[in-house]
């Protein structure tokens, strides 16, 4: 099954994507992740101001039958969470890379972004999991 993996984003093995917008990054979960989870029914997101280290848990995403922790791909301070979609969580399924973004983080170490997976590398990770 073809997966939508935009080439201009960075990725993690735990299925988060990262888009760089200056010194802030936008973070969400990938199309592959939303597809494996199924209908998403609940999002637990952090409050703005929380300071995250790379790989910290910053929230949870739940479908009817699965729950998955969200890991921060980078270190920094949460500047905004997409709380507007908590009542319409299906946006994460339908539009994971735009409307379904989860948090914005002000980078404390921009070099961390470089170490993340490219679209091609992530595609291999997603393939290896089988779908």
């Amino acid at each position, binding site marked *: 099954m073809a997966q939508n993996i935009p080439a201009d984003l960075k990725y993690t093995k735990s299925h988060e994507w990262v888009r760089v917008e200056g010194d802030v990054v936008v973070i969400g979960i990938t199309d592959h992740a939303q597809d494996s989870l199924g*209908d998403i*029914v*609940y999002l637990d997101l952090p409050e703005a101001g929380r300071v995250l280290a790379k790989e910290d848990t910053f929230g949870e995403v739940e479908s*009817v*039958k699965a729950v998955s922790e969200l890991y921060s791909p980078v270190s920094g301070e949460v500047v905004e969470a997409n709380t507007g979609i908590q009542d319409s*969580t299906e946006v994460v399924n339908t539009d994971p890379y735009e409307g379904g973004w989860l948090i914005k983080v002000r980078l404390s170490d921009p070099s961390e972004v470089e170490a993340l997976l490219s679209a091609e590398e992530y595609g291999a990770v997603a393939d290896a999991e*089988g779908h």
Partner: protein
Amino acid sequence: MSKDTREPLIFDVSRPGRVAANLLPKCDVPYQSPSELLGAESLREKLPLPEVSELDVVRHFTHLSQRNYSIDAGFYPLGSCTMKYNPKINEKTAGLPGFAALHPLQPQETVQGALELIYELQKMLAEICGMKATTLQPSAGAHGELLAMMMVQAYHAERGDTQRNIVVIPDSAHGTNPASAARCGFKVKGIPSNEKGCTDLAGLEKALEGGNVAALMLTNPNTVGLFESDIQQICQMVHDAGGLVYCDGANMNAMLGLTRPGDMGFDVMHFNLHKTFSTPHGGGGPGCGAVSVQANLEPYLPVPTVEKEGDTFRWKFDNSKSVGKVHSFYGAFLIAVRAYTYILSLGKEGLRSASENALINANYIRARLADYYDVAYNAPICMHEVVFSANRQKREGDVRAMDISKRLMDYGFHPPTNYFPLIVPEALMIEPTETESKQTIDSFIEAMIAIAKETQENPEIVRTAPHTTLVSRLDETMAVKNLDLRYAPLFEE
């Protein structure tokens, strides 16, 4: 013929002023006003309960019962659930007034028969698993696990081994294992299974490093239906590292009279009396998660324990090392009566025969379906259950394990367990139990083969199953997003 198959809620049947029957006597003592006795401010106004006749009640609940699958009506090949026949005599004995109409706080001299039964059953269970002592207090398997972890913690605490804060659990374990360990404040360390579906000894070795492991929780036979052949070495490794070994007894039905967890080296285990010892599941409970221990853990058993002195039985409440109490009283006594009845009915030879037949039935299914479904880990012999993967069906017809399960309903069977254990993709876990006949099992096998063919020829019929049940697939997303957990009109003014 089109027929509305819904059963209305009892609240829809209710009519103001309707009553069921002459259930209660008139007041035969001088009447005093409740508001004087209790204070008007303490009294309620509304009491939103239904008003129905007894015939309404009988019809409604009879109709509801007809909307259930049950062992009495058909075959339940549910892996890890041991849905064996629940003998009717068990219900008869549990209903005897000398058991059912006992108050738990009656003077001990008035409940000697009950204490004797508890004492006897505890001894029998200890004998069956090769351990020293048993408690019947836990209400379910998960409750037994929790109690066991409490005892493990108390054991290490008494030795000053308070740094032991890790419980090691294979990735194939029931979810209750990590949940129960976490409930006791333990950190859970998972270990992967090896390519044979069994505990990976190197992984275990690594997990045991550091001297912080309090216990290993292990299911044997494991959740893939395979016997952990290295079990003695596993127990030895954990003991050498100063930890204890817990046996999740969910799969005890494979071992009665054939092998005993106590002899393998386990320190503590739980039984599910509602699986192995035939007490009914009741649509989700009640159960009994009896726990047996070796001598090293006996001091920590919950109170009260029952003791025999001459011909007299008595409760012993004072035990300074006990972890305390985990039940209001002594556990699910009437479930214990059923299990005791079952053991007397089977006898030692019947127990062994039950496990032998459970193994034969499971291996027969394994052998006959192996050409149609992928056997997980492809071991030549399974124990009392067999795990298949629907990977092939997913690949060939985009049919998932869940679809196959739902389609089985159209053939008149309850589905097997799906998506467990987690380490098997598209798992179909089948446990036939000993009480099913070859004829029943053959027709189940035929249904499974037919579905495998449908997957190739007409996968849509499988993907959209069931087609013959009272309701089709339910919208579980809607159930979570628009929570409707009680009948709202009852609460509207």
